[in-house]
């Protein structure tokens, strides 16, 4: 589930802090998207390399994101369901995939914060600006893709057996964010929440004590 947020990021953080009951974690992830070169593979493939720059020693992982679940089952759930496999790696992942014939496609830097908590399912909420690099891999010189916009993403791991329960838990949680924002499946437009300004003001003045 996701949405784009123009304002009220601080209020959202206060709301999330109250709802999740965990400390927020800072987020600074360099994501490099590679695509298979010509001739490689019977079909083209894409792989993402993620470098967590928030750690004292940057840590790498490799991620493959599959296509979205389709069909009647997909239409019945209010969340996007797709396969994702991730593997932590040592630091040579980029060199390895280049050597295997993968080519650089694009990269971005996500900067923001996240909450990771359990509420019917293990849920992660990230609020981050999406930044592009003006020079290849120059994360210190990143600028927002669209100034002032943050992306709010809510994700939760699931298996093929329990994804409907996880989807329900996610949707239930997202309802608590409704005074500030509406989340939806990617590709579905949501618009601005009319109560957002008032809700944000209440949160900011109260420092999280307000029940919305």
């Amino acid at each position: 589930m996701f949405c784009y947020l123009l304002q009220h990021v601080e209020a959202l953080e206060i709301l999330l802090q109250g709802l999740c009951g965990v400390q927020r974690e800072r987020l600074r992830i360099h994501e490099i998207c590679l695509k298979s070169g010509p001739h490689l593979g019977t079909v083209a493939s894409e792989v993402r390399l993620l470098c967590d720059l928030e750690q004292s020693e940057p840590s790498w992982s490799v991620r493959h994101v599959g296509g979205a679940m389709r069909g009647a089952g997909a239409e019945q759930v209010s969340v996007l369901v797709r396969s994702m496999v991730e593997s932590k790696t040592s630091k040579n992942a980029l060199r390895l995939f280049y050597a295997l014939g993968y080519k650089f496609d694009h990269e971005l830097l996500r900067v923001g914060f996240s909450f990771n908590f359990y509420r019917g399912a293990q849920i992660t909420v990230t609020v981050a600006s999406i930044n592009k690099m003006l020079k290849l891999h120059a994360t210190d010189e990143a600028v927002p893709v669209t100034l002032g916009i943050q992306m709010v993403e809510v994700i939760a791991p699931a298996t093929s057996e329990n994804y409907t329960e996880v989807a329900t838990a996610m949707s239930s949680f997202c309802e608590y964010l409704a005074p500030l924002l509406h989340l939806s499946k990617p590709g579905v437009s949501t618009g601005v929440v009319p109560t957002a300004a008032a809700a944000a003001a209440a949160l900011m003045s109260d420092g999280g004590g307000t029940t919305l």
Partner: protein
Amino acid sequence: MPIRCILHWQPNQGTVVNSQVLNEISQCVETLNGVKEGRCKASLTFYRPNLRDQSVTIDFPRDFLGISMLELPNKYFFIIRGQKIVLEADSSILLIMEKLQSYKSKVALNFEGVLYKLGDFQIRVIKVVPNQAESLRGIMVEIEYLPISSIEKSKQIMEEFIDIWKEIVAKKSLAGQFMHAEPNYAEYGLGDNYTSQHTAVQYAAALAQLIQSAQVRN
């Protein structure tokens, strides 16, 4: 982790490795009062690119290898020897490679060994066999010195032990000898502190030597 050195068996010209040689080598360990502690296993897989146009194989690495070790069930290692790349990953990387469909496994070899304990040392006597076959393709011995993790600091004691080992094996008058060629770890970006990545690099190097000797003999 403790430092390890891998020696590979080089049969004399015109001879082949066989189970008799393996038994004699195991007896050498017992001569040193080595005590059997258990078994060990690693699997090596050669990968080849899945190509839409077979004429472009030259653009892709010919020495792309994957290694799993029984002692590290949640890890997998990739090596491209020609470019001196080693990568340690969670074993879920195999699922990712399967989904990418860009490389396929071609040949798999198992390194199956018996672990012996000798005081501060551990020795693994390893036979190299193809996956799902019994024919012996090679023999390796892995010497581990438990107290030290620094490659530099352990150099002298390791060399002394290897000399003793070679002398004991030589007394058996077997048709071959153990060779030790330590890879240049710095070229792989590896430091003085020994890790599983060093072991993976050694396995790949030893296998390359075994293949080369087999090609020379043929």
